């Protein structure tokens, strides 16, 4: 890491690059939305951002605090409903979704429901699926953005809230989830990861600048794969940083405030 950019800024820039132009994405608030806005303002001007509560393709003025708040509707093409967005996903119209989660396993399954063993008396109650289970079931490609440590990258989830590849290749289709869908990329604080096309296990595609294979292993609770040759994540360009800081998140809600 240099002082030119923060880790958060790197992650948002890496996330933004995964989003192709002219595609549809259901995006939550926070870093995923900062990434989508950055993509729109750089290489993907026709990226269509949908919000699960019903907002459609707003001219985003700033980052909303809720996926239903007024900022998800400013200059929008259509004031719709959660049903409209979720059925569009189910119909196959939505390319990307972008999620977080308290725990993730090697197949990209997520837990955002609880820590503990008894749902009726959990050690820590978390929000639950929200739209995550639906979006990861129904959108074509699921991206995940998350801090990278052993508490999060676990060998076994306490609760499988949201489907990744479940138990591996073919498992999604076997339970009835739409064919051809599933986890696509994970952007963590250490690396950019994808999935082995045969085993559907997670593997590192590029290490963020200054991060080693051992750093990843030490912070991952399951056996992580690594592609060969292993790349280094491209650093944010000056242009990406400028747009991110000036146009996407001038208030520093996501990327934090910078020293003057």
């Amino acid at each position, binding site marked *: 890491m240099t002082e030119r950019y923060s880790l958060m800024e790197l992650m948002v820039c890496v996330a933004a690059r995964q989003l192709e132009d002219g595609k549809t994405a259901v995006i939550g608030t926070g870093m995923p939305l900062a990434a989508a806005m950055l993509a729109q303002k750089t290489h993907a001007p026709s990226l269509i951002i949908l919000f699960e509560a*019903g907002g459609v393709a707003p001219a985003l003025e700033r980052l909303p605090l*809720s996926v239903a708040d007024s900022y998800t509707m400013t200059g929008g093409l259509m004031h719709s409903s959660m*049903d409209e967005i*979720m059925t569009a996903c189910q119909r196959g119209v939505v390319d990307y979704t972008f999620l977080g989660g308290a725990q993730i396993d090697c197949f990209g399954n997520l837990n955002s429901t609880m820590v503990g063993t008894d*749902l009726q*008396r959990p050690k820590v109650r978390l929000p639950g699926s929200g739209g995550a289970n639906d979006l990861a*079931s129904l959108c074509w490609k699921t991206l995940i953005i998350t801090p990278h440590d052993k508490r999060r990258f676990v060998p076994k989830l306490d609760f499988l809230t949201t489907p990744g590849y479940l138990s591996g290749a073919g498992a999604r289709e076997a339970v009835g989830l739409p064919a051809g869908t599933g986890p696509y990329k994970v952007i963590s604080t250490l690396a950019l990861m994808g999935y082995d096309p045969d085993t559907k296990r997670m593997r590192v595609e590029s290490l963020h600048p200054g991060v080693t294979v051992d750093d990843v292993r030490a912070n991952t609770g399951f056996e992580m794969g690594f592609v060969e040759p292993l790349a280094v994540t491209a650093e944010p360009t000056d242009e990406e940083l400028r747009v991110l800081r000036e146009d996407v998140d001038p208030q520093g809600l996501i990327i934090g405030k910078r020293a003057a």
Partner: protein
Amino acid sequence: MAINVIDETVGTLFSEPDVDGARRWFAAKSRVLSNKVMTVREAVERFVPDGAYLASGGFGTVRIATAVLHEIVRQRKHNLGFAGHTTTHDFEILAAGQCFDRCDAAYVVGLEVRGLSPNARRYMESGQVQVTEWSNATLGWRFKAAAMGVPFLPARTLLGTDTFRHSAGRTIECPFTGQTLAAVPALFPDVGVIHVHRADVYGNAQIDGISVADWDLARACKRLIITTERIVETDEIRRNPELTQIPYWLVDAVCHVPYGSYPGNMPYVHYSDEAHLAKWMEAERDPATFAEFLNTYIYGTQDFEGYLTLAAGEARLAELCALEPLKRTPEVA
């Protein structure tokens, strides 16, 4: 390879998808044109009995019927069922009053980017609340099934997960394609509360902006309490029938509550009061502090107007209106 095909789910079904029973209820519900304007207190006294199954419209901190939720706490309603369909501040309020003891949970205890409610977490971790898991889409489609008058809807989500295992859904085989689908049962809440932009005295109601799940929710609920920013003449409703989401025969009570979504956001009217929402979260850290907070803001106020004066006041409300990015266009004035 062992594949996680879930044929049995273990979640409790808190409300039967009894479409014929619901039909009899709806048949008996009056469709006579009558003035339904009443106070929030009266609406809660009449239509929210202890033990009822409740659903809350809007989206947690956006267009929520805060006044009704407060009054439910103030009247110390208990043993309610609650539909946690992206419930955030609404969940926080009812958890503060320990009003519900069973919950269909799609999104609970969190307030999106604002973090988790300490008190709601404690309540959900205490073992006092029986919980059945769903996702936002499937819990919404449970309302939709009810609104459509069918006992279930098929879906392609939930499958293969613990969320599904702890739901009360079922797997079915498609009668045409043979593929496995999730079936989610109709949910007819005993009472729903929805905040709207304008309604007439009969209950014809219009919402500006996204409707979230309220179109279906309004139709699924056996009783419906509307709070509204403005009470308007029916002629104003008839001038813009494209905006009408709720016809009067669905409605049992119309309560005039300006700023009724406070401290949440009311699109086209005012933005959320993030400072006050943070104050709730902060007070919740310590149970004794929070008890005092509730005594001050809920139990110690007569009604929502009292709360609004105490928590915000005119100057702060004016600020929140100025912060609202959606300016009401002349078209929807």
